[in-house]
């Protein structure tokens, strides 16, 4: 076991995969010689060479298209999009092609491409370096969508994604790349107070291991209310629960699609109350799907409306990153409102 940050755990997952399978390669803007703007591919160029840690032109659509072709020809490309905000130029290739290829060809062709991309706020990056577009991808059939919240999960899920024969969009919340983030509402939203080296999930095996896609994890059992979230917000929710003293059950979804509805439904059927949290904008975000699913599955158990705590329906503003970010306080308020709600 080693102590790893998210960045190191992701790098370790890539290293294990490159090492195990000659058909794996990583590719993207500045991922080769430089090692990636967030350092996730550092050292891979030296170890595996320029062909397997492949720098590319700045053309997200071209990168994904090339990866699809490589995937069809037997490789397992792991693509980095430098920021999730820059995935849109590739979205036609992702939606119209990558997601649909196996189905449209009657199973003849497929491309096992993994697309990694840093998402969310955390670097005062304003509206073009802070987005969380995961919701869009969950609307596209044929894609798996993953967002880990800690180094241990990140490594195990990323290896699963790479070895999966379906395309996976793998979101990496950049705010927790270097330490867990608890969202102290007086603090600077851009500095990371936590440190993975003192967090249990910062203990990561050096070797190859997998965490199954499609399986949520219950981080805290509780009886009063169910909290559903993923990525950075897992830590903020955890801190909010601790601060509020509420006996909440906290579920880290990890994979958004396929969704682990069994775990979710069992919890909400037990607690009868639920709050859903994500950093992405609210309207038609993944929280809406969660609520729709839960009220379908757990209607008769629900004792209160399910609340959403989310980013606002505005671009992510440079100067108001904190006010945009769903804070501990907003979560605590939602928990309290939901607990107090009674006929």
């Amino acid at each position: 076991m080693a102590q790893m940050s998210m960045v190191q755990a992701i790098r370790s997952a890539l290293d294990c995969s490159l090492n195990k399978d000659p058909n794996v390669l990583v590719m993207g803007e500045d991922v080769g010689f430089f090692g990636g703007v967030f350092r996730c591919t550092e050292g891979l160029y030296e170890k595996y060479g320029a062909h397997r840690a492949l720098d590319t032109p700045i053309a997200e659509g071209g990168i994904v298209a090339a990866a699809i072709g490589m995937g069809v020809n037997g490789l397992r490309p792991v693509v980095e999009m430098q920021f999730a905000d820059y995935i849109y130029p590739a979205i036609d290739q992702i939606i119209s092609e990558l997601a649909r290829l196996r189905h449209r060809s009657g199973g003849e062709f497929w491309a096992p491409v993994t697309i990694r991309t840093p998402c969310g706020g955390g670097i005062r990056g304003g509206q073009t370096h802070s987005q969380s577009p995961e919701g869009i991808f969950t609307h596209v059939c044929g894609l798996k969508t993953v967002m880990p919240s800690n180094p241990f999960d990140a490594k195990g899920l990323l290896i699963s994604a790479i070895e999966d024969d379906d395309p996976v969009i793998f979101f990496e919340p950049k705010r927790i790349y270097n330490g867990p983030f608890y969202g102290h509402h007086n603090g600077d939203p851009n500095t990371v107070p936590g440190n993975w080296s003192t967090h249990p999930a910062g203990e990561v095996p050096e070797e190859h291991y997998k965490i199954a896609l499609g399986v949520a994890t219950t981080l805290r059992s509780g009886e009063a209310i169910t909290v559903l979230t993923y990525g950075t917000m897992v830590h903020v929710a955890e801190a909010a629960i601790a601060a509020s003293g509420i006996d909440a059950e906290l579920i880290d979804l990890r994979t958004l699609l396929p969704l682990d509805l069994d775990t979710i439904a069992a919890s909400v059927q037990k607690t009868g109350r639920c709050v859903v949290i994500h950093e992405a904008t609210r309207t038609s975000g993944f929280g809406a799907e969660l609520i729709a699913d839960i009220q379908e599955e757990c209607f008769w158990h629900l004792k209160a409306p399910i609340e959403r705590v989310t980013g606002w329906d505005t671009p992510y503003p440079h100067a108001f990153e904190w006010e945009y970010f769903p804070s501990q306080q907003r979560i605590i308020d939602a928990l309290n409102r939901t607990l107090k709600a009674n006929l």
Partner: protein
Amino acid sequence: MTQRQRAAIPYISQLHVPRASSRPGETADFSQLEIPPAGAAKKPELSACCQEMTELAYGLVRVLDDDGQACGPWNPALSAQHLRDGLQYMLHVRAYDERMFKMQRQGKLSFYMKSSGEEAIAVAQAMALKPSDMLFPSYRQQGLLFVRQRPVVEMMCHCISNAKDNLKGRQMPVFYSWKEGNFFSISGNLATQYSQAVGWAMASAYKGEEHIASAWVGDGSTAEADVHHAMLFASTYKAPIILNVVNNQWAISTPQSFASAGTTFAARGIGFNIPSIRVDGNDFLAVYAVTEWAAARARKGYGPTFIELFTYRAEGHSSSDNPDSYRASGEAQAWPLGDPLERLKQHLINRGEWSEIRHQDLEASLKSAVAKDWKEAIAHGTLDDGPHWPVESMFEDVFKDMPPHLRRQQQQVGK
């Protein structure tokens, strides 16, 4: 249209809007096309770089002259038998297209697209490649499948989405896929396969294999971003690929002038440092020769070649449009580079290797073969009455393994 607007606006637009070769009511006139004589184009070394051969991007490689004689350095010197095979494939494609179009008109297919007038392209190119080379076609290269010997009945079963459709009823007609024949799944989205093909070729080089890729787009589709990406990535990584543009002058109702920027399509390759050649797409021998040359370059590690195949879409875009509503009705006949089947036939006759009678016999036998195939195909099911694949199969192949939410949906279907 002149600059002046028909319905008055308070200013006179200075915008330049490209014109069509002809519009209904006009007389089709291609006399301004520069058509160099057959045999005149030089043939560079395989190792030639782009800059050494830019005149080929502006010229037109032609082998068959107006009398059907093969001439010049690009003459691929093919055996008569090889050429007769090519002619047969082209005739087969044409017979197939005729039949399928007629069946569409009778409501047996939901849609169809012919390749009339441009059969030489897919057929000659497929013959110049190895069967292990990977094809990334658009929807108008059905000829590739004939050369690769795909059973016609299978193609038909796809087009009517019956129980024998290898695409399980999921795709519109003509969006073939045939893995066994190294023929990539055709996308409804224009040009997306072009840059994917480059990735495929990059993987081939990565693995040190000698397989090359070949990809096709239409003139209109060159405007899509994927074509730009394909050219950039192919050139950057020297991918073993042939990038083809089938310039058949029209994109549905839109003339090539909205995509060509007033120069040749082949010229687009120059800025990407890719050796680029413009070839008479109705000249079977020239198409074969240029493709053979490009394939040899790719296999030797010299990287991509960009080929503009200069041809004419002799009929409508698809079963959904009537070309007479947007171009002069005689335009197809006015096309100065003739019909590819006629030209190859003439060449073979000139060589004493073919005759009108053999030609007519072959046409007749292909026609009846296609009719027989059609009967066999509909025996496996029709679009309207089935049998189709079981409806539950629609939920398969979305993912390799069906996740729970799709299993739930599958249980509800038909209920």
